[in-house]
């Protein structure tokens, strides 16, 4: 790992969305009690006296066909989760805005997480897609499905491909709610976590208020990204990316 994993809640305030003082920030990503869908020309707007910086990250979703990459992106963004599985036949990116409060100094930041999702078959058929996904990527979420053992067994292969790359790596197990069809034992997950020292997160089940069910995953991701020290602070759409300010924490 390129960095020391932070323990959960050590850098950012966990469950901040439940606190009263977070309300004015979270209200900017909600619309009529649902998550707001932002076009590329939009972003959460705070009143002028509350200056909030936005930090931009690119996150690649990796995993076998059918594990639920597209569904995870939709869930994290609060979009409608497709009720049927269709292959993603190219790259689709989804933008998630997430307010975060730093424990150290109480500073609030908007994380702009752009999730890059590409169907496995498309990656295989078209050579240019994987390099496009890897270009300037900050984190990789390795997905496996609790209902598909092979997707779990394949994780080591997938992670090995990224050895040495300075990116944040997290593992996400999907369809955790379908315990009747569970194919991956809790013990295996623990062993895996120890061997690779990569955090494993779990998602699945009903979508509730649009915040609670994604907060832990987004906070964990934000925490790792922030701890990795490499943070690109950029205003949207300035030309050239990596020549923007680098903030090292």
């Amino acid at each position, binding site marked *: 790992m390129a960095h020391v994993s932070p323990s959960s809640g050590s850098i950012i305030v966990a469950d901040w969305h439940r606190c009263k003082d977070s309300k004015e920030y979270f209200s900017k990503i909600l619309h009529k009690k649902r998550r707001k869908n932002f076009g*590329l020309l939009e972003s959460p707007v705070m009143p002028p006296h509350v200056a909030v910086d936005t930090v931009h990250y690119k996150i690649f979703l990796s995993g076998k066909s059918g594990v639920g990459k597209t569904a995870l992106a939709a869930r994290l963004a609060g979009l409608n989760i497709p009720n049927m599985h269709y*292959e993603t*036949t190219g790259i689709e*990116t989804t933008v998630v805005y997430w307010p975060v409060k730093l424990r150290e100094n109480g500073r609030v930041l908007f994380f702009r997480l752009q999730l890059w*999702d590409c169907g496995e078959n498309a990656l295989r058929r078209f050579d240019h897609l994987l390099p496009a996904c890897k270009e300037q990527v900050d984190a990789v979420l390795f997905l496996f499905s609790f209902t598909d053992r092979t997707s779990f067994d394949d994780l080591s292969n997938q992670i090995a491909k990224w050895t040495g790359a300075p990116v944040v790596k997290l593992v996400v197990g999907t369809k955790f709610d379908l315990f009747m069809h569970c194919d991956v034992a809790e013990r295996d997950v623990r062993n895996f976590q120890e061997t690779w020292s990569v955090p494993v997160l779990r998602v699945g089940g009903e979508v509730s208020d649009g915040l609670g069910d994604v907060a832990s995953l987004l906070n964990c991701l934000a925490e790792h990204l922030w701890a990795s020290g490499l943070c690109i602070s950029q205003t949207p759409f*300035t030309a050239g990316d990596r020549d923007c300010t680098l903030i090292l924490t």
Partner: protein
Amino acid sequence: MMMLQHGSTQLLCLTASSGVPLFTRGASKQLPFSVIGSLNGVHMFGGGHGVVLSSCETEGGGKVVWRVFQDSMMLIVVSGGGQDGAGDSKEDEVRLQRLLENVWSCMVLVLGQDELTNVRNVERLKRDLRSCFSLIDQLLEDRQEGILGNLTHCADSLLPPNPTLLQEAVDGFAQASDSEFGCLIVHGRIAAATEKWWRLAPPEVVLLSALIRSLSASGSASCDYPVFLPQGSPTVAHRLLRFQLLPGADVCVLCGPTPSLHSAESGMVGRFWTPLVETLRDCLAVGEHSLPRSVSLRPDVLALLLINRETRRSVSCVRTSTNRPLGDPPLPSKARCWEILKLFYIFSTTRYFNQEETLCVSPEERAQRANTDDFVLGFSHQPLQCYLVTEECKSYGLQTPQHQLFLLAPLSVPTFALRTVATQTLSDIVGATGF
């Protein structure tokens, strides 16, 4: 024989030479394998006797249409028929023929022609074909109100209040993306496009619009999709880049290896489009009406479809019921109006008007598949107007060298006034927008 439930449509795809089933879509209850085998068998039997079996009807009002594409793939569509008042079998057949063409085009769009015509490994092809299911299901469901392009093969368009600004932005954005093909889609309809985009074959424009609509509906922010153009480039993939500017407004370009999605998004989207946010919002406000407020339609127009025959573009709208005088018969619902509009389009174009054929078929095949009734061919002249009065509403069709207009009016409008309503509506729209 009643093969399917009423109103449901099932699509079968088999290899043409060996009859290996590749996939089936639609209808919750699949046809049994023996029926699929028989459907393929009877077509093959005809082929062996020099007969092309193209369609048949069942006693229960069902319909089967066969079609072989590029000598390599057979598509069969089975319709349960009897959709509530969905017109007679002629209308059904036109709809199903179109469906098969569209399905084939979208298979080429996603996989390319080579993969479909040079089948080396059937199992692999089956797996790859799954990539097309999203679009195919969308075609089968055909649920999106107000989108008629799949039927007319004319691009569903929206006439923005500020066309010049948007046109300049689309042109500039495409140029900056090293592309000559760019378009802006608002509410699933083309609001502006580069000149080259309009020079793509009309069915391709419609197909790309359908793809963009489905990508846009997912709410994702941007896409980089490899696409083959069924007529323009069936064997070499291009990249379709799509950016969601605002929810409901997407800009797209067709390009080669550069620019990367990341660089186009961070370097160009904001530069070209941030100054136009308000213009885009105005455009979104036009909504499903497709027509800017500057066009004032007569109150007795219930719904309309206007086609520009030269540019192969169309605008359409259904107006939500205005206050109806007491005692008048109830007006058909919005959804029903869209349905009637489609049926009346098929009715007029098969019986009276020319349907501009834009299909990718040889002239012989075209003659064979001509949807035009014999008695029309017997006319010594080309009908210019037609009307139809049903229990639900009155419909009027009108064609000029430049346009075709299909219009629905409430029953309360006297039949003799329909012509005036139609001609005036045509000149109102064309006068105000230059469409």
